[in-house]
C-alpha cells in the first residue's frame, strides 16, 4: 500500500515531464486549432495578409449560401451510401477470411493491396482506368464501362463512392475478421447442441457478438466519410466536379479557403465539420460504450 502511494507521488514529477512533449505537440496542432477554427470563422482573412474582425458575417454568408447546404447534402449522401455499400461487403469478406487456411490467407494478401496505396495513387489510377476512351471500357465485353463515369454529373458521385469503397472495404473486412476470431467457439458448440441451425447461429451469436465491432467500424466509416478529401480531390482534379457534383464539405472548405482565398468563410464551413465530426463520434461512443477503454484504464 505504502509502496503504491510513494510511487504515485514520485511519478507526479517525472510523469508530468514524460507526458509533456506529447501533450504540447498534440495541444499545439490538435487542440489549439480546434479553438482557432471557431475564432477564424469570425475573422476576415485572405490567407496571406493581416487578419481582421468580421463578426458573424461569415456565418451569415455561409448559412444562407445554397452551396453550403448542397455540400452538406452530398456529404450526408456519401456517408449513408458508403455505409450501406461497405458494411455488408466487409462483413461478408470478414466472415470468409476469419477461418484460418492457405486460400483464405492468399485472399487476405490480395485484399491488403488497396491499403498500401495512397489516396492520390488510387485516385490517379481509377481516373485513368475509367477514362471512356482508353480505360477499361475499351476491353471487349466491358464496353458498357466506356461512359463518362467520372465526367457525368449523374454518375460521378456514385463512382466516387465506389472508389472509396475500393479503398476502405479491406480495412473494415479486417476489423470484422478480427472481431469474428474473438468469438468463443464454445458459444457455437453450445448453440449447435441446442439444435440451432447456421442461420440462427449467425443471427443469434455472430451478429450480437459483433455488435462492438460493428459500432466501431460504422463510427470509423461515418466519421471517415465526413472527411473524404484526398480521393475526391484527385478524382475531380481539385474541383469537386463535374460542376459541383462531388463537392462535399471538405472540398467546399478547401475551394473557399485556398482557391477563393476566403479563410473566414472556409473556417465557418470547417467549424461545421468539427461540430458534425465530434458530435457524431460522441453519439456513437455513447451508443457503444466505447469509453469502456476509459473504465478499463481506471480499473488499473
Amino acid at each position: 500500500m505504502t509502496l503504491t502511494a510513494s510511487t504515485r507521488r514520485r511519478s507526479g514529477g517525472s510523469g508530468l515531464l514524460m507526458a509533456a512533449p506529447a501533450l504540447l505537440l498534440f495541444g499545439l496542432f490538435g487542440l489549439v486549432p480546434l479553438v482557432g477554427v471557431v475564432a477564424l470563422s469570425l475573422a476576415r482573412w485572405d490567407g496571406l495578409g493581416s487578419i481582421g474582425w468580421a463578426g458573424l458575417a461569415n456565418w451569415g454568408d455561409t448559412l444562407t449560401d445554397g452551396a453550403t447546404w448542397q455540400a452538406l447534402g452530398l456529404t450526408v449522401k456519401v456517408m449513408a451510401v458508403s455505409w450501406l455499400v461497405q458494411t455488408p461487403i466487409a462483413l461478408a469478406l470478414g466472415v470468409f477470411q476469419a477461418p484460418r487456411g492457405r486460400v483464405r490467407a492468399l485472399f487476405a494478401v490480395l485484399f491488403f493491396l488497396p491499403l498500401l496505396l495512397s489516396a492520390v495513387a488510387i485516385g490517379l489510377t481509377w481516373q485513368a482506368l475509367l477514362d471512356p476512351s482508353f480505360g477499361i471500357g475499351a476491353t471487349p465485353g466491358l464496353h458498357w464501362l466506356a461512359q463518362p463515369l467520372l465526367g457525368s454529373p449523374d454518375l460521378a458521385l456514385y463512382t466516387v463512392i465506389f472508389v472509396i469503397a475500393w479503398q476502405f472495404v479491406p480495412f473494415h473486412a479486417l476489423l470484422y475478421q478480427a472481431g469474428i476470431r474473438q468469438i468463443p467457439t464454445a458459444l457455437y458448440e453450445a448453440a449447435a447442441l441446442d439444435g440451432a441451425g447456421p442461420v440462427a447461429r449467425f443471427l443469434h451469436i455472430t451478429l450480437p457478438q459483433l455488435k462492438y465491432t460493428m459500432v466501431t467500424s460504422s463510427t470509423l466509416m461515418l466519421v471517415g466519410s465526413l472527411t473524404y478529401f484526398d480521393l475526391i480531390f484527385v478524382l475531380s482534379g481539385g474541383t469537386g466536379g463535374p460542376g459541383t457534383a462531388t463537392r462535399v464539405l471538405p472540398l467546399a472548405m478547401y475551394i473557399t479557403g485556398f482557391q477563393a482565398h476566403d479563410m473566414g468563410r472556409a473556417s465557418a464551413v470547417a467549424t461545421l465539420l468539427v461540430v458534425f465530426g465530434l458530435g457524431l463520434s460522441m453519439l456513437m461512443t455513447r451508443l457503444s460504450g466505447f469509453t469502456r477503454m476509459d473504465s478499463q484504464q481506471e480499473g488499473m
Partner: protein
Amino acid sequence: MSTAVTRARRALTGATTLLWAAIVVVPVYWLVVTSLRTRADFTADSPLAPPGHPTLDNYRTVLDGDFTTYLLNSVLVTVATVALTVLFALMAAFAIVRGAGSRLSRVSFRLYLLGLAIPLQAVIIPVYLLIIRMRLYDSLLAIVLPSAAFALPITVMILVSFLRDVPRSLFEAMIVDGAGDWRMLLSLAAPLARPALMTVAVYDGLQVWNGFLFPLILTQSGDKAVLPLALTLYRGQFGIDVPATMAAVVLSTLPMFALFVLARRQLVAGLTAGFSK
C-alpha cells in the same frame, strides 16, 4: 436442411469474396501492365491484355526527372515523423499507465480519446496559420510537426493498452531496486513494448507516407514535394502520357509494398489494434 443453408451462406460469402477479389486485383493489374506499355501500345492494345512490347522506358522517364528528390523528401518526412511520434507517445503512454488514477493520467487519456475524433480537414486552416506564423511554411518540418501531432492520439492509445497489460509486480520489483521512472521506462517498458512499438511505427509510417493534405496545404515548392503531392504534379507534367504517370504511381508505392512484405503482421496489427480490442 441446415447443411443446405450453410452451403448457401458459404456460397454467398465465397461469391462476394471472389467478386471483390476481382474488383481489387483488376485495377492493380492494369496499373502495372499500363506502366510497362509504350505510349503507342497504350492507345492500341486492349487495356487488360499483356503489353505488346513491354518496356521500362516509362520508369526511366520518371527516374530521369526529380523522382529521387521526392523520394528523399518522403523518406525524411516519414522517418522524422515516426521517430518523433513513437518517442513522445511511449513517454506519454508510460506516464498515463504509471500514473493511473491521477488527474494528469485521466485528463490526458481523455484528450487523446477526443483527438481520435478530430477531423484533420476541419482544422487545416488554423494549422496553416500556425505554420506560417512559426515561419515553417514550405519546409519539410511543416509536414512533420502536424503529422506527428495527429498520429499521437492513436499511437498513445495503442501503447497504453499494451503497457496496461504489463504485470505491476515487474514495476514494483524495479522500484524496490531503487529505479526511478526514467530507468523503468528505458529498461523495462521500452524493451517489453518492442512489438507494440514496431506495430505503431509501421502503422504511422504508412499513414505519413501516404498523407496528402498537409503537404498540399503546407508546402509549395517542387523541391519540397513529397511523393503523393509529386504524383499530382506528374499528372500535369506528363499530361496524356498515362503510362509514365502509372509508372510514377507504381514507384511511389514500392516502398510500402516492401514494408508489407517485411512487416505484414505489424501492419495488420497496427490497422486493427486501435479499434478491435
